[in-house]
C-alpha cells in the first residue's frame, strides 16, 4: 500500500517534467547548476531535488557553505511534512525517519574550505564512511571566489565516483545578469564544466525556470515549472501550459 503511494508520488512529481526536458535527467558524472539572485529559492529547489532522490531510496549528501545548518534540517523536515499532507501518504510517514537517515549534511565554512579539502572530506564520507551517495547537493559555493578550475575538479570527482552533482550559484553583479543566450555572465567561465544550467527568475508573482544549457545543447527553453510560494516546492506551471 505505502509502496504504491510512494511510487505514485514519484511518478507525479514535477521533477519528472524537469527530467524529461533534460534528456532523462542529469546523469552520473554530471554537474547541474541552478542560478539566480539571492533569495529567489535555489536552496528550496535543491532540497526538493534531494527529497525526491531520497524518496527513490537513494543516498544524498548535502554540502552547505552556510554558517549554520539547522535551517537546512528544518527545510527537509518541512518538505516531508508537506509530502505527508497528501492523502494516503500519512501511512508512509513512518518511513520519513528512514528517508532522512539516507541524507548527510556536510557543512564547510567558506573561508576555511578549499575545494580540495571539500572533495577529500566528501570522498572520506563516501568511501570510509561507507555512505553510498548517488547525488550530492552543493549549496552556496561562491563561484566568484572559486577559481575557474574548481568546478572542473568537482566534475572530475563526480565522474570518478559516479555522482550527480547539483549546485546553486548566487548571481551578484548588476543588471544585466544574462547574455543573449540566457547564460549568466558570472558563469560564462565555468560553462564547459556545467552539463545542465537552469536560471530562476521572478516573473510577476511567481518564480520561473529557464533551461539555459541541456548537456550539449545551448538553447533557452521555458521548463513550465514554478516555485510554489507557499510550500516552496517546485510545481508544474499550469499557466504556462495553458498558453
Amino acid at each position, binding site marked *: 500500500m505505502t509502496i504504491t503511494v510512494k511510487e505514485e508520488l514519484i511518478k507525479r512529481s514535477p521533477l519528472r517534467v524537469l527530467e524529461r526536458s533534460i534528456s532523462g535527467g542529469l546523469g552520473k558524472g554530471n554537474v547541474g547548476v541552478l542560478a539566480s539572485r539571492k533569495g529567489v529559492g535555489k536552496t528550496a529547489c535543491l532540497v526538493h531535488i534531494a527529497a525526491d532522490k531520497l524518496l527513490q531510496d537513494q543516498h544524498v549528501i548535502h554540502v552547505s557553505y552556510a*554558517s*549554520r*545548518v539547522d535551517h537546512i*534540517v528544518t527545510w527537509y523536515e518541512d518538505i516531508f511534512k508537506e509530502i505527508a499532507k497528501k492523502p494516503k501518504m500519512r501511512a508512509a510517514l513512518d518511513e520519513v525517519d528512514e528517508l532522512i*537517515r539516507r541524507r*548527510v*549534511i*556536510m*557543512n*564547510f*565554512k567558506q*573561508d*576555511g*574550505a578549499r575545494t580540495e*579539502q571539500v572533495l*577529500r*572530506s566528501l570522498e*572520506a*564520507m563516501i*568511501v*570510509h*564512511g*561507507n*555512505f553510498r551517495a548517488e547525488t550530492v547537493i552543493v549549496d552556496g559555493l561562491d563561484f566568484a571566489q572559486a577559481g575557474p578550475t574548481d568546478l572542473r575538479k568537482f566534475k572530475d570527482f563526480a565522474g570518478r565516483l559516479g555522482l550527480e552533482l547539483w549546485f546553486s550559484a548566487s548571481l551578484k553583479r548588476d543588471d544585466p545578469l544574462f547574455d543573449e543566450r540566457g547564460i549568466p555572465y558570472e558563469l560564462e567561465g565555468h560553462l564547459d564544466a556545467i552539463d545542465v544550467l537552469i536560471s530562476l527568475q521572478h516573473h510577476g508573482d511567481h518564480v520561473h525556470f529557464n533551461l539555459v544549457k541541456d548537456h550539449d545543447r545551448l538553447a533557452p527553453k521555458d521548463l513550465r515549472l514554478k516555485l510554489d510560494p507557499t510550500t516552496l516546492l517546485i510545481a508544474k506551471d499550469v499557466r504556462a501550459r495553458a498558453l
Partner: protein
Amino acid sequence: MSTDIARMRNIGISAHIDSGKTTLTERVLFYCKKIHRIHEVKGKDGVGATMDSMDLERERGITIASATTNVEWADHSVNIIDTPGHVDFTIEVERSLRVLDSAVLVLCSVGGVQSQTITVDRQLRRYNVPFIAFVNKLDRVGANPFKVRDQIADKLGHNAVLMQVPIGLESALEGVVDLVTMKALYFDGPEGEAVRVGPVPAELAAEAAKRREELLDAASMFSDELMEAVLEGGPTEDLVRAAVRKGTIARKLVPVFLGSAYRNKGIQPLLDAVVHYLPNPAEVENRAVDLDHGGAERVLQADRAAKTVALAFKLEDGPYGQLTYIRIYQGGLRKGDELVNTRSGQKIKVGRLVRMHADTMAEIAEAEAGDIVALFGVECASGDTFCAPGLNLAMTAIYVPEPVISLAIEPVDKNASDRVAKALNRFTKEDPTFRTHVDPESSQTIIQGMGELHLDVYIERMKREYRAEVKTGMPQVAYREAISQAVEFDYTHKKQTGGSGQYARIIGRLEPLAKGGYEFSNEVRGGRIPREFIPSCEKGFRAALKKGQLIGFPVIGVRVVVNDGQHHPVDSSDIAFQTAAQGAFRQTYMKAKPQILEPVMKVSVEGPSEFAGNVFATISQRRGVIVSSVEDGQFSRVDAEVPLGEMFGYSTVLRSLTQGKAEFTMEFLKYGRVPPHIAELLTEQHLESERKKSQR
C-alpha cells in the same frame, strides 16, 4: 556574613570538558581568599584543584560531583556550584541548574561552541537561567574570542556582546580593555592578584571604540534612558551596567568576558560581572506545587518572614555523616526549627547547619531565603522538599532520565559484599540516574546508569572510598520491546478449586503508541466490568508490561483499550481481573508483531579535520548514521546517531585512531528498532538462557 538578599548570588559554572572550568573556580577561590595557594588540575604539586574533592577526580583531571562553595566578593555572598562537564553526568548539571539563579558559561577561545556547550545551553534554556559567558584560554595558540562571540550568536542564537577586548593574544596576552569604563586592566603579581588600571593602549583605541559602540547599541535596547544618554554622548557607567543587567536577567543579552584562568588574567573582572549583571535570588521567580490544592502552582516569596520552603538537591556521605545540601526558597532556617518532608510526611529538626567550601565547612546559626547551605543528619532523598509545618508544597520534580546501560557486579569476597551494599546505598541516594537491583533469576547485583563512564566512575569509587572490589560482567544494553500493530483480545480467567472461585473476562485491544510509555483506556459500557475492577485490569496490564515475551525486556509504547467483559457476582475479584489482564496480554502480545528496540545515542565527535575520514569509518562500522559534519578550518565535528550497544570501548578506539586528538560525547536520544539479524540473535540468546533455566 551579609544577610541582605540583594547581595546574594547563586551561580553555576558550566562548560564543555577541558574548557578550564575547574581551573577558573580555583582562581575564584584564591582571589576571594578562600584558599591561600593555587593548585593546578593534574598539577605537579600532587594536591589537585580544591574543588575536586574526590581522589578520582584529581587523578582523572575531571570534575564529577558538584561541590558547592561560598565566597565573598565586593561585599556580596556568592554560592558557586562547580558542575561536571561530561555528558554522562548531566543529571548533576541539571540538578544544579534547578537550584541556581544564574550561570557563567565557560568557553574555550580555540574550540568555541562545542557539542557540550550546546547541551548546557539547552539546559540553561529549559530552566530559564540567565548567564554571562567567559571566553577562557586566551593564551592558547589559535585563540580567537571574536570568533567565539560570533558562534554564541550564530550557533546558540544569543544576543552576545563583548564587554571587553583582549590586549594581545596567545603568548602575548597582557590583559583586557573594559568597554564600560574604557580602561585597560592588567593582572600583576605572581598570581595575578594585583589589578592594575591603565589607559587603553593606542593601537587598540579604534577597535575598543568600535566594540564599545556595539555594546552601547545592544544595551540601549533595554533602557530608554541609556539610549538618550548615548545620543547626548555621555552615558554613565552605572547606566550602561543597569541596562546590561536588565537584558541579561531577561535572557535577552549575553555579555561576553575574556581571560585566561591558567595565566591568572581576567578573573577579578569576571567576579565583578557576577555581582553587576547576574540576578539576586529575589529577582528570580520560583514556583512550587501545592499538594493540598490539587497541584496548583504557587510562586514562592524570597522573604525571610514567609513560611519556609527548601529543596534538598544533593546528598553526600562524608566523613562526618550524611550531608544534605539544600536551597532555601522561602523563609529561613534556624537551628532547632521543625520542618516536614512533604514526600514522606516525616518531621525533622534542624540540627547542625553549615556553609560549604569544597570539602571544608563553617558552622552557621541561621540561613535565609535564597541561600544554599547544608544540613547534618537528615534522612531524605535528593529532590525532597522541606516545608514549615502547615505548608504542603513540592518543588517541581527535577527531570530524571531513565538509565540506558546495566552491568552485573560481584564482590570479590565476603568482606567486600557488605561494603558494596553500603556504597550502592549511598550512590543511589546521591544520584537518581544511578540505580541498582538484584536480578531475581541470576541473583547477581545489577547496576544501571547513563553510560559506560558513569558506571566506571562508581566502580572506581567503590574501590577507593569503600575498599570494595568487584568483578564486573559485560555491559548490557537496556533493550525495550514494542508492538507494531493493533490486536484484539478476549480472555477469560476461570478457576474452580473448591471454596470461592475466580472469574473474570476482559475484551479489548492492544494498540501501538508512537510516543512510547503506557496508556490505559476504559471504554466499558453498562457495567460489564464493575467500576471497582477497572483499576485491577490496569494494574494487571502494567505488571505484564514489565517483561516482554521476545527477550524479556520491558514493553513500551502500548495503549490498552478495554471495552467489554464479564464478571461473576461472587467469584470476580481484584486478583481475578489482574490475572485476566495478564493472561490477555500474554495471549495477544506475539500477535501484535512485537519488535526489539535499542537505545540510540546522539554521538558527537570533535577533533582535527584530518581525522574526519577515520571518524566516519568508526561510525559506519558501528551501525551509526552520520547526521552532519561541520568543518571549520582545521577543526571538525561529526554528529551521528549510534546504537549504544555498539559504543562500548569507543573511547579507546577513538583515542588510538586519532592519537588522542579527538574527543566524543554522547547522550541518550531515543529508542530505535533493532535490525532483523540482530533481533534474531537476541531472541535466540534469550530462548537459550530460558531453556537453561528450565533445565536447572
